[in-house]
């Protein structure tokens, strides 16, 4: 075939290197996020947390990884085998492919596509499938209930995330993620759109199935929810998927509200520090909120969760979209991108 000439192979090789350069650090970040989570929760509860394996317990996540690798993969006899194995893979790969459009710095982005924000939204709405497939294929009541809860929850909170994104897009006038960051050069959107930022953070907690909205894996009622039947590497994939989805949501929040790679003030001192460091600092801040909330708040009941999503966030975010649009038109501030 003419496609497999030297030029294309070289291109593919470089692309593969880029992909590795994103996935490698991401997996390390996920490993240390689990460590950080245990440390933060331990500190909140006045304990020490992991402190035996390695210096300050820093090698604990790798020990956990080795443990998971060396366990036996058990596939339930009455499960739908192909879908059972496919579900964690879908979950994991979906949480990785979203990273192809995240602009870590002005030039550090794998593909700078026109509809970046819609792509992220689409990928995050696809991640329901990993969970619902796992719940169905396990052929277990706990897993199925967990999957149903999770699917209904993610569909509900996607609506309010959608409106939050629309509000930001109204102010930017472009669906390109780099343009969204550049539009915040004067003022980060967290200040004028603060209520939407709060809605976004809470919806992000619900979207990633994190405490206090971790009903899909409600251990006191559903054992472990949708991954009850999973073990070993298949379980580890769900685990990695969940944590990298958390990092992804934090990056999305950073891009939409905290000005991405931009320093807080546009002066000499702050501009010395490269953009990606600012980006990671902001992502770290949002991740800390995730962990802090988990250590502090009790779990919601399911009807409370649905009430919050549909009766509070939906009207609130819809109203804010209308208000923002009115404000922009009234003061003639609508952005006009001709790109």
């Amino acid at each position, binding site marked *: *075939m003419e*496609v497999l000439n030297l030029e294309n192979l070289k291109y593919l090789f470089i692309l593969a290197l880029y992909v590795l350069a994103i996935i490698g650090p991401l997996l390390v970040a996920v490993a240390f996020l689990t460590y950080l989570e245990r440390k933060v929760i331990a500190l909140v509860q006045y304990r020490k947390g992991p402190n035996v394996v390695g210096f300050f317990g820093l090698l604990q996540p790798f020990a956990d990884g080795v443990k998971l690798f060396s366990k036996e993969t058990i596939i339930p006899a009455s499960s739908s085998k192909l*879908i059972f194995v496919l579900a964690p893979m879908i979950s994991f790969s979906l949480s990785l492919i979203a990273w192809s459009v995240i602009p870590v710095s002005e030039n550090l982005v794998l593909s700078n*596509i*026109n*509809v970046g924000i*819609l*792509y992220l*939204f*689409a990928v995050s*709405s*696809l991640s*329901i*499938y990993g969970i*619902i*497939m796992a719940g*169905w294929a396990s052929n277990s009541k706990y897993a*199925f209930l967990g999957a*149903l809860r999770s*699917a209904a929850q993610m*569909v509900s909170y*996607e609506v309010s995330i959608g409106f939050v994104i629309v509000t930001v897009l109204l102010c930017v006038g472009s*669906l390109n993620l780099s343009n969204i960051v550049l539009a915040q050069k004067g003022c980060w959107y967290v200040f004028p759109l603060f209520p939407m930022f709060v809605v976004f953070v809470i919806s992000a907690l619900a979207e990633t199935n994190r405490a206090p909205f971790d009903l899909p894996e409600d251990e006191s009622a559903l054992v472990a929810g949708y991954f009850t039947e999973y073990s070993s590497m298949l379980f580890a994939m769900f685990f990695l998927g969940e944590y990298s989805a958390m990092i992804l949501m934090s990056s999305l929040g950073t891009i939409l509200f905290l000005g991405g790679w931009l320093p807080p003030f546009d002066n000499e001192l702050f501009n010395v520090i490269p953009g990606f460091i600012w980006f990671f600092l902001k992502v770290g801040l949002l991740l800390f909120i995730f962990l802090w909330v988990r250590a502090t708040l009790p779990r919601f009941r399911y*009807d*409370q969760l649905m*009430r919050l999503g549909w009766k509070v966030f939906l009207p609130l975010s819809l109203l804010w979209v209308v208000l923002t649009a009115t404000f922009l038109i009234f003061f003639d501030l609508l952005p006009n*991108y*001709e*790109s």
Partner: protein
Amino acid sequence: MNVFFILFSSITVLSSVAVISSRNPVHSVFFLILAFVNSAGIFVLAGAEFLAMILLIVYVGAVAVLFLFVVMMLNIGVDEIKVQAKKYMFSGFLVALILLLELIFSFSNLDVIYQTSNSNFNKLSNTHEIGKVLYTEYFLPFQIAGCILLVAMLGAIILTLRKREGVLRQNITEQVSREKKDSIEIIKVGKE
């Protein structure tokens, strides 16, 4: 022809065949989703990235999930479907025929479609392009479509809404606004 086009289109066609031939209804829905995702891929190849993403968000992310929900909860067998399918044979064929005729009609007029789409083509991205056309030239049809959807939604809510007696509901505002003086009464028990 593009390699990716061959890949996406063949997977779309094969999974569409699998939708109607697979023995398990849940597997059918999964194949349907695969077909959707691959048609989104074809959209991207055609340069319509906005449509592709909307297809993924609306159909794959929301509609197909609800579809999957229903099929999983109903737990229908294949034999039952076959019996049911025979009843709807006629209307099914009618719909298929209409779709086929429409496809033939639009493919025989391809040059007209290309001309109108290329005439006002400029450097805008297709998201801007769609927005400009949708909210100016086709404003009325767009609003009417929205109204029809709203009516359909209200209809669905009214059909499924039922009031049950004796259900205890939690009123969060009421709970939060409770104060110490409403709920605690201190009674001094003096000495006799």
